[in-house]
């Protein structure tokens, strides 16, 4: 304390008397702040974000097609430019549920066996009049797939029951109209 006058006996006495006179007990607990964890803004914000992320993830998962359909869409994408017949027509038509001796619907572009998610599948890409290009997949042995439809990665998809034994077929096309026409050709007509 260079800047102040030196302490005298009076100052020491003053300090001692003040210390005695103004004695303080403990600190009142009401002065402390204890915000409940759930009332904190950060926690509320995190919970809200978690909820939003959960809802978004739920929506995304609900919107996403089944794994086999995604595999079929991927296969269709990679074989889109492929043309030719790599399988005999009766075998393909049998698995498509169209009968062994019938004609291939539309103008066939690609017929071949392939593997989707480690399962044997029959791939038919054909051009349907008044519809357009459509790709049909049938699995051997038949797989358990619920009927449904939607869009995924810019293509329309639909799961239908075949006309023959009612096995699931996956229809894929870039045009919705093609699926409508394909449905009338490949799907079982309800009784």
């Amino acid at each position, binding site marked *: 304390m260079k*800047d*102040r*006058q030196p302490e005298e006996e*009076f*100052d020491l*006495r*003053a*300090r001692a*008397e*003040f210390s*005695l*006179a*103004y004695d*303080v007990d403990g*600190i*009142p607990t*009401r*002065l*402390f*702040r*204890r*915000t409940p964890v759930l009332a*904190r*803004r*950060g926690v509320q914000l995190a919970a809200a974000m978690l909820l939003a992320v959960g809802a978004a993830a739920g929506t995304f998962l609900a919107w996403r097609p089944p794994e086999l359909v995604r595999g079929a869409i991927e296969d269709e994408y990679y074989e889109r430019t492929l043309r030719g017949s790599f399988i005999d027509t009766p075998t393909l038509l049998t698995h498509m549920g169209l009968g062994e001796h019938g004609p291939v619907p539309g103008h066939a572009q690609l017929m071949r066996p392939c593997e989707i998610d480690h399962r044997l599948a029959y791939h038919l890409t054909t051009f349907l009049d008044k519809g357009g290009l459509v790709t049909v997949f049938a699995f051997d042995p038949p797989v358990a797939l619920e009927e449904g439809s939607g869009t995924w990665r810019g293509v329309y998809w639909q799961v239908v029951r075949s006309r023959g034994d009612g096995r699931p077929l996956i229809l894929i096309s870039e045009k919705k109209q093609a699926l409508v026409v394909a449905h009338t050709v490949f799907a079982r007509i309800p009784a």
Partner: protein
Amino acid sequence: MFASSEARYNQWVRDHYRFLFRSAWALTGSRAMAEDVVQDCFTNAWKCRDQLREPALARAWLFQIMRRSIFRHLPPCQIALDEDEEDTRAAPESGIDDRLDVVRGLGRIAPIHREVLVLHYFDDMPTAQIAEALEIAPGTVLSRLARARQALKAAVTSPPAPREEAERSSNVTALKRV
């Protein structure tokens, strides 16, 4: 972020409550009023917690808030800013031994002197921090402190005013009547 603010605030309460409460008690002359003032002070400190830029000045900053709170609690006639004006309040109203003349003397000097002495004697606060707490220049702190000590010495050595003596003997409230 909120949790860290809360922890910092609670640390202020732990570190500065005793000093603030003793100061408020000495400045208002009333323990009950000091409790209100300190509570008010911490409430305001929480509201303005982001305004404290220098953590080392927390005590001076809190004192500043508390001082303003005292201004709000005390009637205007008791907030004398004139150095020549003397306060005729008695010392803290309860539990104080009659021998504590310095304490009684503190109650008789001007509030402007009282607050600088409180900071000096209660906390030994550095001049720069006293200046921050009282919102005055450091040079003013030194001159005011010197005058305040003289005033306190004079108040201790001089006999109490007859009116003050009468108030004390009749157990009249320590606060000056408006």
